[in-house]
């Protein structure tokens, strides 16, 4: 009741014309930076910080929250249309989303992403209001051994996206794992696989890898086949979601939200893992129907998951002062710039600010929907640009975004090398998703395993004695064993029939 009153006061703060304007600026800017690979919400907020010094805190945070949510949405647009993920959390969207676009269902893919993001963002923000304290206690109880088990679960769950050929899937996974090793080892501070190039000491940014493999590889592949026969004509298709699209989307939206929110709150969860899990859940539930050819479920679920995780991130940030993503870390710095320390006292000391920000999340979400839904069919027409121009544009776009990341020419060289690798992988039928999954999950599994063992002073039983870890590992074992059990059962049935 008390929170409800405060939330209503928050809406009063958010609905002042000035703050509505800040929210609009925020979501627009967020959508733009989400579209451009390389520039993400974290960097945008960081660069805006000094400029907003004279803006009242409530307005500044309303704008920053808009940028955060907008960035989560904008990344999906290029993923779907051009197979060029703008953010690492929208890579999975490219798998089915781009296939849909090629079948003339770009508008539907964009619409399910927009509505899914809205639904997930709204539900997750509501959860933020009611469930924050509970989620925080759960998140803090996660230790390194639990994160390791979580990584194992994610690896097993996404093995279904590896590919039809296990060998090719594993080869691609290996490429990702090796790229993930490059840079300074976090635990010992030693350099690995850097070839003496200082720019590689911090590792290769996930965005550079995603843009290189997906976008550049695609451009090179298309260019190499441009003179092979007639280019496929992309059908226009209908502009809006049909009845069956809605029917197939609403469940993945809800499931994606349920996965994304808790993962956002986990300090080591991030926005990527829930998208992987959501994709594999949808693929399993759809029993493979249409997956690989542009299944709308494969867009709806992950897009909902990444937006829900953005709201989840705010839980530990506001209640504990614990940043769980790069953007959250910058937001924390922003709080401190205004002399505010997020944490248990923030809700008591600055209720107007906190509830104003939460209310503005609802407002921003609605704005994003209004902004993006009518644009979906417009964006979809991008695909009708003649391909040489379109792909030249992507090339420019990708290089620009990656250069903006660190203003380093080494990143550009790395980008083009990865583009060649991406081209080769396409040419020889290696799937791209496992490489990216290896790149994100590999280092996480490694660091958490070593942390767990170091804290346990070398005792390997710590990996299974934590109840959370035990549950997660059991789940992984079940996923692995399920096909085997099913095969044995069906063989028994056949034998039973024969006798």
């Amino acid at each position, binding site marked *: 009741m008390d929170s409800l009153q405060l939330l209503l006061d928050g809406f009063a703060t958010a609905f002042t014309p000035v703050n509505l304007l800040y929210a609009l600026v925020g979501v627009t800017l967020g959508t733009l*930076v989400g579209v451009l690979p390389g520039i993400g919400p974290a960097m945008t907020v960081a660069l805006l910080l000094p400029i907003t010094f004279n803006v009242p805190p409530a307005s500044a945070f309303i704008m920053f929250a808009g940028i955060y949510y907008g960035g989560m949405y904008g990344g999906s647009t290029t993923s779907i249309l051009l197979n060029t993920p703008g953010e690492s959390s929208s890579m999975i969207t490219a798998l089915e989303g781009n296939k849909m676009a090629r079948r003339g269902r770009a508008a539907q893919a964009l619409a399910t992403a927009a509505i899914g993001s809205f639904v997930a963002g709204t539900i997750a923000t509501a959860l933020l209001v009611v469930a924050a304290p509970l989620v925080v206690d759960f998140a803090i109880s996660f230790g390194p051994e639990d994160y390791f088990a979580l990584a194992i679960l994610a690896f097993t769950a996404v093995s279904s996206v590896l590919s039809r050929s296990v060998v090719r899937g594993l080869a691609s996974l290996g490429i990702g794992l090796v790229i993930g090793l490059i840079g300074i080892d*976090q635990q010992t501070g030693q350099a690995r696989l850097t070839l003496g190039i200082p720019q590689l000491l911090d590792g290769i940014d996930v965005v550079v890898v995603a843009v290189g493999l997906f976008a550049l590889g695609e451009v090179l592949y298309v260019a190499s086949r441009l003179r092979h026969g007639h280019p496929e004509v992309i059908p226009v298709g209908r502009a809006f979601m049909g009845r069956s699209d809605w029917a197939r989307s609403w469940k993945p939206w809800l499931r994606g939200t349920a996965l994304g929110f808790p993962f956002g709150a986990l300090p080591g969860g991030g926005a990527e893992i829930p998208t992987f899990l959501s994709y594999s859940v949808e693929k399993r539930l759809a029993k493979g129907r249409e997956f690989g050819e542009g299944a709308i479920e494969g867009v709806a679920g992950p897009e909902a998951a990444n937006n829900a995780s953005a709201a989840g991130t705010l839980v530990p940030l506001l209640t504990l002062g614990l940043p769980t993503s790069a953007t959250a*870390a910058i937001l924390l710095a922003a709080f401190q710039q205004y002399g505010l320390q997020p944490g248990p006292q923030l809700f008591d000391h600055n209720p107007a600010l906190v509830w104003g920000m939460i209310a503005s999340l609802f407002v921003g979400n609605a704005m994003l929907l209004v902004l993006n839904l009518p644009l979906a069919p417009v964006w979809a027409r991008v695909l009708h640009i003649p391909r040489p121009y379109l792909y030249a544009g992507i090339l420019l776009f990708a290089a620009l975004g990656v250069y903006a990341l*660190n203003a380093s020419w080494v990143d550009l060289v790395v980008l083009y090398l990865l583009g060649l690798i991406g081209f080769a992988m396409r040419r020889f039928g290696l799937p791209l998703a496992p490489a990216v999954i290896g790149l994100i999950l590999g280092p996480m599994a490694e660091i958490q395993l070593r942390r767990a063992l170091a804290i346990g*002073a070398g005792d390997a039983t710590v990996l299974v004695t934590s109840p959370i870890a035990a549950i997660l590992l059991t789940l992984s074992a079940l996923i692995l064993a399920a096909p085997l059990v099913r095969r044995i059962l069906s063989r028994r049935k056949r034998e039973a029939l024969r006798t």
Partner: protein
Amino acid sequence: MRRTLILAAALLAAVAACGAPSSGGGTSALKIMAPAAPGGGWDTTSRTAEQAFKSADPNLKVEVYNVPGAGGTIGLTQLVGEKGNGNLLMTMGLVMVGAIEQNKSQVTLAETTPIAKLTEEYEIVVVPANSPFQTLQDLATAWKTDPAKVAVAGGSAGGTDHILAGLMAKAAGVDPKLVNYIAHSGGGEALNSLLGGKVAIGISGIGEFAEHVKSGKLRALGVSSPDRLESIDAPTLKEGGLDVELANWRGFVAPGGLDDAAKQSLTDLVTKMHDSAAWKDAVAKNGWIDVFQTGQPFADYLNSESARVKGIIAEMGLVS
């Protein structure tokens, strides 16, 4: 496509306006390099100084740009390449001294011109509220008994937190190599390990943990300052029986090969910036400690810190 181009152009303009390196600049334009990504300590210091420079002299053109990577040594390499440029400052600090050693950087601070030390922040050693350690002596005893059992949470390997852990172990009579240091990607992540009771002690900048010490979720065992601090109720490490002081200091260096006149004019400019009300306000707001020092004293300080950090990093086995 036109839409895309407009978008790209708008973003380019936005990025350029926000301080990406540009080729412009007359004789009076001063550039400040933050050798880290936007948002960190060096970046905040650089951008705060930019505002203070402008308030001290409204005619002065000042521009901040970021060169992130490898503990600041990428930026250092670029700075050294600008030999003789009297219009460039780089923000740096203790972490860079460590990174130079650890990354076996080709260039060192000897090839720069020290200008000024600006601020210091101290470190704090904390335990979870339910920890058996009440004092630093309890910690020292446990450490001596079995160093592997005392998991220490802090920031990146070889950074300020790690260096303090090594110095504390040495003072307690424990081989710094045996410290069971669990590196985290930042104070926030380390905080989570502490609140979850996964590690024995945590080390970070005071700002990262202060709020949680006040709320009673963490207990402060000691601070790394020479004297007790007003901002937090905790003894110094020295009072607790570990003879260690460590400040996470930040300052400015300029490229090497500057003549005395160029060096003097940069020093005067920075002194004027330091005396401005804008700088004093920002220092208070950020909880920094003002330790302004220029000329030979700063150069000597830089040398002694380099030697100390080099020694402890080698003793901790961090240089391969």
